[in-house]
C-alpha cells in the first residue's frame, strides 16, 4: 500500500499522516496490537478518516474480532470511496471469505485509483488465475512485466498467462525474449533448469518437435537442465514423435533407469510401431527380452500375461504364479484379477493354483511333488484359491478353503481379511465384521487393519464401535475420532460413516457427512490459491500447470461422485416426501452416539467459550497473535438437522451435482441423478439432455428405463402443456428416445419381457408400474417374482428391492425378508430386528477379548477400549 493521493476528506495533518504511515508498516509486519493503538490515535482526532477506519478494521479481523472489524471496514469505505486503500482492504477481507469474484471487483476498483500498484496487481493476478479469467490475467501479467522487467518471475508469469489463455505462440515469444535478458545464469541452477523444461514443453505443445529437441539437448549438454529423468523422458517422447532412429535407444535407457514403469514399455512398444492389441506376438518377443535383461522386474512379465494367449499364456502364467506364491506375495490375486475377463485365462489360473496347492499339500507324498514343498507355498496357494472362489461368488467353497488355511496358520491376518470380504459379499455383514476384527487383533499396531475393521463395523451398522476403533489412531485431543478424520480430510471415513447413517435411516447425519466430503473438495480447490504466486517465484511451472489441470477436474474423483449421488438422492426423496425431513430422526440414535454428540458439543462450547473469553479480554490485553484473514469453519449444524429440513432440497442437490455435468458425462448414475433433480427443478432441457446422454451410454440400463417412462408420464399429466420453446424441444427429445405412439404400460411390459431373469430389471419395471399408478398389490406381486429360481438376484439388489417395498409402504416387507433370508443362507441382511440385535452383540463379544491392542498410544487408548467394551455390554 504505497502512494497516497490527497482529497479533502482524506487529508491528515503531518502528525497523523506520519502515524498513518506507521500504521501501514505495523500492519505489514503484523504488529497488530501496536497497529490498533496507532489507528485509535488517529481516529481520536479524525473519527471519520476512511482509510484509518479500514486499516483498523483489517487489524481487528486479523486479531480474530471479525464482525467488529468488518463493520469498521464498511464504514471506512463509505467515508472515502475514491481511496485505493479502502478497496484493497475490502478485497483482502473478501478473499479471506473465499469470495474470489467479489474480491476481484474490489481490487479492480482499487486499481482505478492506483493503476501501477504492484501489490494490487499481483493479488489481482492470483484472483484472476483462481477464477480462470485468463484474458484478464494476460493483461495483468503484462502490466507487471512492464513495471518491473528486471524481475525474472514476471517474464515467466507472462508466458504462463499466455499459455493458459491458449496462446502458446506468444508464450514462446516471451520465453525467448526472457532468455535473451539473462546474464550469468549460475551453473547448475534448479530454477533455471525448471524454466528451460517449461520452454521445451511449450515447444512440444506447439508441435515444434525438432526445436524442442534441440533446446533440450543443448541445455542438457550445458548442464543447464539438471533433471536427468525429465531429460530422458522428454527426449524419448520427442524422438518418437520425430520418428528418429535414436528413439528406440532412448526408451531403452528409460526402462533401464526404472524397469517397473509401464509407461516406458508402452513408449518403447509404440515407438516400434507395435500395437498391443494387433501385434501381440512381436510385442511378446520384445517383452521376453526385457524379462531376461531385468530378471527382477515385474512389469514385463505381467504385461506379457496380458498379451499372451493359449499355450504361451499357460507357459508364462505358471512360473508367474508359482514364484509369487513361493515368495508369499499377498497381492497376487488382485494383480491378475483383471485378466479374468478372459474366461480361458481365468480357468488357467484356477488350474495352476489348484495344481500347486495339490503338489504342496502336506497330504501329498513328497515323491510325487515337483515343486517346493515349502509349507508357506501351500498356505499362499490356499489364500489365492479362496480369493479366486470368493470372487466367483462361490462363497461356501472359499470359506472351506480358508478354514483349511486357518487350521494350518492361524496367525496370518490376510486369511481373516479374505474371510471377511467373502462373508461381506455373501451378505453376512456381521460375520464379516467379526472376521475383520480377528485380523486386526493379530496386529493391533497396523493402521491398515484398524481402518478395515472400522469400515466393516460401519457396514454392520456398528458406527459407535467403529469410531472407538478409529480412535486408536486419531489425535487424542480431538473432540472425537471422526472430527479428527474429518479435519484430516479422510474421504474414506466420511463416506463410510455417511453411508452407514443413510442405511440406518439417519438421513440428517448422512447428509452431514456428504456435505463434509463436499467441503474437503472445496478446500482442495482453495488450496491452489497461494501457489498462483508461489510456483512462479519458484519457477516450477510444469508441475504448476499440471496442478491447475488437476484442480479443474477435481470433482471427477470417485469420492466426490459418490457423495454427490448419495446426497442428491436423499434430497430428491425429501422433496418427494417432506415428511422424511421432520421424521423421528433421533429415534435411531444410540446412547453412545448421544454421549459422543454431547461430548462433541461440550468440546465445541468450551472452544467457543475460550474464544469468547479471549475476545472479551482482547481490548485490555490485546495480543499480537495473527489469526489471519481466512474465515475459520464454524459448524452451526452439528446434527445435520438444518440440512435435512432445508426448504430447498433440490437446490442443495443441484449444487453438488452441477460440477459433474461437465466432469462425469460418461457416468450413467450421475446422468440419472441429474435427471431426477432437473425434472423436479423444472429444468426440462437439462432433464431431457441427461436422459438422451444416458441412453447413448446404455439404453437398457434399468434405472434409466424408470426415468424414460417417468418423463413421458410427467408430460402427460401436466395440467397445461409446457410453454414454448422449452416444451416442444423437451417433447421432441423424448420422442427420439421413446416414440409417442407407444403406450407406457406396453413399453414397460416389453422391457420386463426382454429382461425377465434380471432382478434389477424387474425392480425397475415395478418402480415404473408405480410411477404409472399401478395398484400396490400388482407392484408387490411383480417384486416377489425376483425370488423365482431363474432370476439372478444378489444381496445388493435384494437390499434395494427391500428399500423400495419400504418406500411404497408395502405391508409385505417382512414376508419378503423371510424369503430372502431363506434364499441367502449366509446372509444376515434380512434378519429380524431382534435377531440383528443379538448379532450385533455377537460381533463384539467374541472379538473384544484382545491382548494385542496398539501399544504406544498412552492412556487415551485404554479409555477408548474400555468404552468399546462397555458399549458392547460386555467386559473386556
Amino acid at each position, binding site marked *: 500500500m504505497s502512494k497516497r493521493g490527497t482529497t479533502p476528506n482524506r487529508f491528515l495533518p503531518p502528525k497523523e499522516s506520519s502515524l498513518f504511515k506507521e500504521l501501514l508498516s505495523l500492519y505489514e509486519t503484523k504488529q497488530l496490537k501496536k497497529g490498533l493503538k496507532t489507528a485509535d490515535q488517529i481516529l481520536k482526532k479524525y473519527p471519520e478518516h476512511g482509510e484509518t477506519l479500514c486499516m483498523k478494521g483489517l487489524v481487528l479481523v486479523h486479531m480474530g474480532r471479525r464482525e467488529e472489524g468488518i463493520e469498521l471496514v464498511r464504514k471506512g469505505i463509505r467515508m472515502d470511496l475514491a481511496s485505493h486503500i479502502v478497496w484493497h482492504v475490502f478485497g483482502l477481507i473478501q478473499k479471506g471469505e473465499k469470495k474470489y469474484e467479489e474480491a476481484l471487483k474490489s481490487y479492480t476498483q482499487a486499481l482505478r485509483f492506483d493503476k501501477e500498484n504492484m501489490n494490487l496487481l499481483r493479488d489481482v493476478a492470483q484472483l484472476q488465475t483462481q477464477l480462470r479469467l485468463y484474458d484478464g490475467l494476460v493483461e495483468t501479467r503484462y502490466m507487471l512485466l512492464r513495471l518491473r522487467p528486471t524481475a525474472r518471475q514476471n517474464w515467466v508469469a507472462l508466458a504462463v498467462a499466455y499459455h493458459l489463455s491458449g496462446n502458446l505462440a506468444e508464450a514462446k515469444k516471451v520465453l525467448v525474449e526472457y532468455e535473451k535478458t539473462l546474464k550469468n545464469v549460475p551453473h*547448475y541452477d*534448479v530454477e533455471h533448469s*525448471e524454466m528451460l523444461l517449461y520452454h521445451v514443453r511449450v515447444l512440444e505443445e506447439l508441435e515444434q518437435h525438432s526445436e524442442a529437441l534441440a533446446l533440450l539437448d543443448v541445455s542438457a549438454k550445458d548442464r543447464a537442465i*539438471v*533433471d*536427468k*529423468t*525429465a531429460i530422458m523422458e522428454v527426449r524419448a517422447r520427442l524422438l518418437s514423435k520425430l520418428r528418429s532412429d535414436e528413439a528406440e535407444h532412448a526408451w531403452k535407457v528409460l526402462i533401464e*533407469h*526404472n524397469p*517397473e*514403469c*509401464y*509407461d516406458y514399455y508402452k513408449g518403447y512398444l509404440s515407438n516400434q510401431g507395435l500395437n498391443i492389441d494387433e501385434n501381440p506376438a512381436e510385442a511378446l518377443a520384445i517383452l521376453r527380452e526385457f524379462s531376461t535383461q531385468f530378471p*527382477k522386474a*515385474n*512389469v514385463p512379465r505381467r504385461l506379457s500375461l496380458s498379451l499372451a494367449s493359449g499355450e504361451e499364456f499357460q507357459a508364462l502364467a505358471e512360473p508367474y504364479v508359482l514364484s509369487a506364491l513361493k*515368495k*508369499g*506375495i*499377498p*497381492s497376487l490375486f*488382485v*494383480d491378475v484379477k*483383471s485378466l479374468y475377463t478372459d474366461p480361458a485365462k481365468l480357468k488357467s489360473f484356477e488350474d495352476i493354483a489348484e495344481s500347486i496347492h495339490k503338489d504342496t499339500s502336506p497330504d501329498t507324498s513328497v515323491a510325487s511333488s515337483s515343486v517346493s514343498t515349502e509349507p508357506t507355498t501351500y498356505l499362499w496357494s490356499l489364500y489365492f484359491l479362496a480369493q479366486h472362489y470368493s470372487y466367483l461368488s462361490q462363497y461356501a467353497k472359499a470359506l472351506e478353503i480358508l478354514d483349511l488355511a486357518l487350521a494350518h496358520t492361524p496367525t496370518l491376518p*490376510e486369511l481373516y*481379511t479374505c474371510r471377511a470380504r467373502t462373508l461381506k459379499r455373501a451378505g453376512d455383514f456381521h460375520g464379516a465384521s467379526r472376521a475383520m476384527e480377528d485380523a486386526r487383533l493379530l496386529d493391533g*499396531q497396523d*493402521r*491398515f*487393519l484398524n*481402518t478395515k475393521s472400522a469400515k466393516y463395523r460401519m457396514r454392520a451398522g456398528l458406527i459407535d464401535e467403529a469410531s472407538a476403533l478409529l480412535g486408536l*489412531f486419531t*489425535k*487424542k485431543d480431538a473432540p472425537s475420532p471422526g472430527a479428527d*478424520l474429518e479435519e*484430516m*480430510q*479422510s*474421504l*474414506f471415513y466420511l463416506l463410510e460413516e455417511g453411508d452407514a447413517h443413510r442405511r440406518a435411516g439417519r438421513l440428517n447425519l448422512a447428509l452431514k457427512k456428504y456435505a463434509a466430503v463436499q467441503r474437503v473438495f472445496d*478446500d*482442495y480447490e482453495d*488450496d*491452489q490459491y497461494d*501457489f498462483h504466486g508461489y*510456483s512462479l517465484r*519458484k519457477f*516450477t511451472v*510444469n*508441475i*504448476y500447470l*499440471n*496442478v491447475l489441470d*488437476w*484442480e479443474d477436474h477435481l470433482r471427477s*474423483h470417485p469420492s466426490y461422485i459418490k457423495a454427490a449421488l448419495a446426497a442428491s438422492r436423499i434430497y430428491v426423496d425429501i422433496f418427494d416426501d417432506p415428511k422424511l425431513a421432520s421424521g423421528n430422526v433421533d429415534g435411531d440414535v444410540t446412547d453412545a452416539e448421544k454421549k459422543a454428540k454431547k461430548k462433541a458439543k461440550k468440546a465445541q462450547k468450551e472452544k467457543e467459550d475460550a474464544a469468547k473469553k479471549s475476545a472479551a479480554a482482547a481490548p485490555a490485553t490485546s495480543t499480537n497473535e495473527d489469526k489471519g484473514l481466512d474465515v475459520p469453519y464454524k459448524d452451526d449444524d452439528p446434527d445435520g438437522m438444518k440440512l435435512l429440513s432445508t426448504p430447498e432440497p433440490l437446490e442443495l442437490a443441484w449444487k453438488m451435482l452441477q460440477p459433474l455435468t461437465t466432469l462425469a458425462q460418461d457416468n450413467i448414475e450421475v446422468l440419472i441423478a441429474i435427471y431426477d433433480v432437473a425434472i423436479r427443478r423444472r429444468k426440462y432441457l437439462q432433464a431431457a439432455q441427461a436422459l438422451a446422454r444416458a441412453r447413448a451410454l446404455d439404453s437398457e440400463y434399468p434405472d434409466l428405463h424408470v426415468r424414460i417412462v417417468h418423463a413421458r408420464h410427467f408430460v402427460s399429466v401436466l395440467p397445461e402443456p409446457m410453454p414454448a420453446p422449452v416444451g416442444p424441444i423437451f417433447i421432441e427429445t423424448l420422442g427420439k428416445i421413446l416414440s409417442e405412439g407407444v403406450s407406457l404400460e406396453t413399453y414397460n411390459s416389453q422391457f420386463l419381457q426382454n429382461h425377465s431373469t434380471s432382478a434389477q430389471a424387474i425392480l425397475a419395471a415395478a418402480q415404473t408400474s408405480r410411477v404409472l399408478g399401478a395398484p400396490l398389490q400388482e407392484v408387490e406381486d411383480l417384486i416377489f417374482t425376483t425370488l423365482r429360481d431363474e432370476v439372478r438376484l444378489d444381496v445388493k439388489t435384494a437390499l434395494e428391492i427391500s428399500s423400495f417395498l419400504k418406500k411404497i409402504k408395502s405391508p409385505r416387507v417382512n414376508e419378503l425378508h423371510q424369503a430372502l433370508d431363506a434364499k441367502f443362507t449366509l446372509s444376515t441382511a434380512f434378519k429380524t430386528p431382534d435377531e440383528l440385535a443379538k448379532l450385533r452383540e455377537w460381533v463384539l463379544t467374541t472379538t473384544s477379548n484382545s491382548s494385542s491392542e496398539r*501399544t*504406544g498410544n*498412552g492412556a487415551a487408548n485404554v479409555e477408548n477400549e474400555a468404552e468399546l467394551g462397555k458399549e458392547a455390554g460386555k467386559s473386556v
Partner: protein
Amino acid sequence: MNIRLARPKDLAGMQAGNLVNLPENYLMKFWMYHIMTWPQLSFVAENDKGHIVGYVLAKIEEESEEKGGDIHGHVNSISVLRSYRRLGLAKRLMMLSQDAMYSVYKAKYVSLHVRKSNLAAIGLYRDTLGFEVAEVEKKYYGDGEDAYVMKLVLKNQS
C-alpha cells in the same frame, strides 16, 4: 505395479494411502507444497486400476552453516498398503527418490525419521538401503514415542 513420478492427480490417493497406513497425517496443502516445490522427488506405485498403493513424499533441506551447510534430502512420509507388501515397492520408491535427490539437487545425504518400534521399516532402511541411525529424537511422535533419525550418504547410483 507401475512405479513412476508422482503427479498432481495422485495427490488424493497419496493422502488417502497415508491416512490408512500411518498415524502421521497431513492436509492436502502439505502434499501439494512438496510436489510443487520439489517436483522431481516424490514417487508412487499404482495398481492396474490406477489406484495408488504406495508412495514416497520427499523434500530438500539446506542446513544452516553451523550444522555443516550441507544440502540434503529428507523423506517426509513413505508407505505401502499392507495388501501390496513383499513386492519391494518401498525399496524401489526410496531408490528413485534418492537418485533424484542426488542427481537434481546434489544432495549429500538423505535423512528420515522412523518410530523406534517400527522394526520392519528400520530393517528396510538399514539392511536393504544402507541407512544408519544418526541420533535419537526423544518423544518425536505425537503419542510420545522416540524417533530414530536415520541417514544415508548419497552416491551416484547409476
